[in-house]
């Protein structure tokens, strides 16, 4: 089986500082793949590189064997990659449902003419989109917020809403940047279940996370980075016993 995401010799420098340096790894399809590391290790930068928000200084990134460097985020979405953000990116000028419906942007077939004249095909398309979005909101546990303005929702609910929006795009792979940050233990447990359900649908999940208990519990494979470089890679078991990792985390 070939890798879904393949990163080789990736490098990103801001000014003279290397946020990511010589990083290589690959993510197999169907895995829950976690990226961990101390604060400032370059995890979010890595996500921004993979999802096309930043352009690498050097190195290559492949999705399904095709080079995706210099491809804008919206084109990557067309290729089945979607993500959430550490600093949540929710459209606060819309309702919760509209945010999720936005996620189905690529699935909609309307064009300018059907829109201007509001033809039946558009209305049918929108109704389907709405049903699908409501289903997804229930799936992530936001069923109570369907008509709520996004700006009126709690932090934890918004975190799940962002995941629903990513799933609405029917991705092959979702990249989730610290989905558990700021959640209490009950919410974290619910999130863990949700991630397992997503993976069970055959969607590859790439995770940046600080909650070690969750990472160790659900990951198939873990990548540890520090100062933008790979520190270790392996199964949760291997990572737990890796002396370099222990040293980095305990500040040794």
């Amino acid at each position, binding site marked *: 089986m070939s890798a879904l995401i393949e990163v080789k010799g990736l490098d990103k420098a801001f000014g003279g500082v290397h946020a990511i340096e010589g990083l290589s790894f690959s993510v197999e399809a169907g895995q829950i793949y976690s990226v961990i590391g101390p604060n400032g290790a370059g995890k979010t930068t890595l996500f921004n590189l993979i999802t096309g928000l930043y352009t690498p200084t050097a190195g290559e990134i492949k999705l399904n064997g095709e080079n995706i460097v210099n491809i804008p985020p*919206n084109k990557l979405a067309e290729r089945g990659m979607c993500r959430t*953000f550490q600093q949540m990116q929710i459209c606060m*000028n*819309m309702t919760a449902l509209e945010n999720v419906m*936005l996620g189905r942007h690529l699935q909609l077939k*309307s064009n*300018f003419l059907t829109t201007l004249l*509001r033809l039946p095909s558009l209305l049918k*398309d929108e109704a389907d989109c709405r049903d699908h979005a409501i289903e997804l909101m229930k799936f992530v546990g936001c069923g109570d917020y369907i008509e709520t303005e996004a700006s009126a929702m709690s932090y934890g609910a918004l975190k799940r809403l962002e995941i629903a929006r990513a799933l609405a795009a029917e991705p092959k792979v979702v990249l989730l940047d610290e989905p558990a940050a700021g959640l209490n233990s009950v919410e974290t447990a619910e999130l863990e279940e949700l991630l397992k359900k997503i993976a069970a649908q055959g969607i590859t999940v790439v995770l940046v996370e600080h909650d070690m208990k969750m990472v160790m519990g659900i990951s198939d494979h873990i990548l540890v980075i520090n100062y933008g470089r790979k520190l270790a890679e392996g199964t949760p078991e291997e990572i737990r016993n890796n002396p370099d990792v222990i040293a980095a985390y305990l500040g040794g």
Partner: protein
Amino acid sequence: MLKSLTQHRLSGLALLAIIILLVPAFLNNPFQYDMATLVLIYATTVVGLNLLVGYAGQISLGHAGFFGMGAYFSAVMTSRFDWSPVPTLILGAALVGLVAYIVGRPILRLKGYYLGMATLAMGFIIYITLNNEGWLTGGPDGMPVPGLSIFGWELSTFNTYSFLGMEISGSLAWYWLMGVMLILGVWIAQNLIDSPIGRALRSVHGSEVAASVVGVDTPKFKNLVFVVSAIYASLMGSLYAHFQGFITPESAGFMESIIFVTMVVLGGMGSTLGVIFGAALLTLLPQLLADFHDYEMMMFGLILMLTMIFMPKGLLPTTQAFIRKKLHKKAEDKA
């Protein structure tokens, strides 16, 4: 029943149609009709501009440039080349749309104040050109524009017409024509807003990154709405030229652009009825202030400043929020 009626997506449009139908009952002379028609022209223009500023969140400080281009295209082609007005204004709108498309691509990559700067500069270049190419445009003194002839009818504010056995004045005919244009403009805008395209536009305002990672081609949508709003402005510019019978480059000027944006912001960004209200207010305000003669400019500035300071969300949304709060309180008191 009443609730479902008021919440229908076109309830605002229905309300607007009723207002347009009722207004003539309060108008007494041709001057008042002409003011009302002017309100309708500006209102339709800013309904288009609101798509760009209110929904997609992109500043334009040069929109009068498009208005002026449409106006001058109609004026020059109909007066100097004897083109027929209606095809001319449609062709003009298509050309202005094309210009907006070409300029929009690079300009709309800019954000915030830089976008404001670039659109302002674009508007100024159009204004300066209209001012300087006097051989074609009549220069700063302006140029006369023939009346609007539709299927052989010469629509002029000086004429009277018989329609279905009724005598109507030219001013009233213009009023009805522009009333229909506004309704049409609002209907099209509303259809755009209540659609995946509208959702994509609002997401550009809400979070451009979020929009792009779910697959929205944000540059394309920004450019689309820029073109649409330019076409609104161009069409209205053409009609304005025929209606007034005379135009000057000031109709493309910086102050005019600022007034357009102010109509949007003052009325309430993202509220179609609000911006129409804003257009009415800013068109009529100078008339009301004219009695103050020398104090007119000072009062205008003061009113602009105070409204924006105390109602930053715009007049209509602020009023709506106020009423909602009152009603809510009433309901609570009852409970």
